């Protein structure tokens, strides 16, 4: 039984308007075999944008780790790695 990867895409207004909206098209850019075994949801603001970290919006939480400056390419990479880490 494979373990699911948990993806939470921030859909707070700030993330959404700075490119976060595009991440909702995850079916287009992540491997269908992988996305099938992921739990994806749009969630409210993690408040990551309000901390003074180096990374900016949009933010995504993958298996409880928050990543900033997210792009479709970066999301694909991290999700794919997380998937194989859990399903060796």
């Amino acid at each position, binding site marked *: 039984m494979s373990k699911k990867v948990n993806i939470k895409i921030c*859909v*707070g*207004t*700030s993330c*959404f*308007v*700075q*490119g976060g*909206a*595009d991440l*909702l*098209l995850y079916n287009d850019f992540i491997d269908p075999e992988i996305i099938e075994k992921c739990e994806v949801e*749009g969630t*409210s*603001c993690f408040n990551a944008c309000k901390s003074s970290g180096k990374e900016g919006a949009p933010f995504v939480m993958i298996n409880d780790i928050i990543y900033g400056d997210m792009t479709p390419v970066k999301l694909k990479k991290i999700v794919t790695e997380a998937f194989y880490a859990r399903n060796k």
Partner: protein
Amino acid sequence: MLEINNQFTFLKSRVYATVLKSYFNGTLENDIDKIPFWIIGKDTDPSRCCIYKERAMIRYRILAFLGVNLEKDDDEIKPLSQFYREIQASKMKPLPVLTTISTACSACPKDQYIISDACRSCYARPCLANCPTNAIYFKNGKANIDQDKCIRCGKCQEVCPFNSILHIPVPCESSCPVDAIKKNANGFVEIDYKKCISCGKCSRSCPFGAIVERSAIFPVLEMLKSEDRVTAIIAPAIDGQFPGNLGQTKAALKLLGFDDVVEVSEGAQITSIKEAKELEERINRGDKLMSTSCCPAYVELVEKHLPNLKAIKSDTLSPMAYTAQLVKEKNPNDKIVFIGPCLAKRVEATKLKTIDGVITFNELASMFVAKEIDVKELVEDDLGNTGCFEDCREFAISEGATTCVLKRMEDSSIVKGYKINGLDRKVVKTLKVIDRIPSKGNFVEIMVCEGGCINGPGTIVKPKVALKLRNGNTQAIAKAMKRETFY
């Protein structure tokens, strides 16, 4: 046109949100001259020559956001705070909608085809054989183009087996469907306002951000601050622009200070009913063709470039106009602000007497960001009884208007409809003779933005994302993006 997500659109949103944050804090007059320095700090890695030019650009973007006509009023010595005081004191002319920042313009060399080093100087030489003006010649072991003879038809590029021919366009010029972009003596961009239809395609195409819209948000902000009742009328395309549903969007607008929110889909229903009746009358009296009239950039196009279409264009008013009438009937003293994806709507609004302000989704989103309003977190506001006009929310999507009109006809079998989805030079050429060529049908829906209003210049997300959020299935997405269909 540029992909909607790019450094320029992100920067624009940041400028808008920063200015609005100061405005809402009541500190804008004091902050405004510092904002270019806040956004472009000392350590910024510049994309232009240096941080000083970047700051100067931010200054121009703030001016455009204040609504200043940069071509008319380009006083470099005047501080932003003084501009801000002046716009508060006097009402600015809302038109033209677009303005240019000549220092941002890269003065792109004119549209040309060039042959790269990938040319193998082959034996077949299809470029040579297919060039209609004999502009190709061979020298130094490769093909060359005589730019004086070249008519930029692109034939050579099509036929080269090595893809060695590049087309270098001038993005603003090639995106303009009506040839309204020209270059001044120094090669910098200028808009010919006699020709411009305010579609906004140039501003979405320039990779330097040299063509910008003058925002009309400040008069709206002042309205919201005043004692007047202000009603927001929201374009059907708003569904899918923000996370959350329409009820939550309504709640968010009320948090911004709007007293009431009315869907323009309600007016779209009136447009549909009237247009259905008009179409029936026109067909019965023998008219060969009627076009829709809901797209304001198309209305401008007809007015400025296509006199032959004046008799063909439906006389029915737009959904915005009917919605404003509905609001005025109920609350005659309300100020009415249209919130939509469209720049040309501002031209339409100046002709109507009922609209007091027009802002875009983009500007609305910046207000939400500045006030830290998360649409999806809010408790839904009641939208009222939407049953009779719910289908008219589809006006935002290519083909939607036709569907709504046909549904409201007594006998829709007399109609053969088709659509023109997106405007470019070629389409304009076809429209010039549309009353003289064999007709594809008797009802044509014309949308200047490809895909419909969900792809307007004031939108925040790609049409595909918007359609997904509107619960569109993939089939609907494919249908909306089709160039032309018959039904």
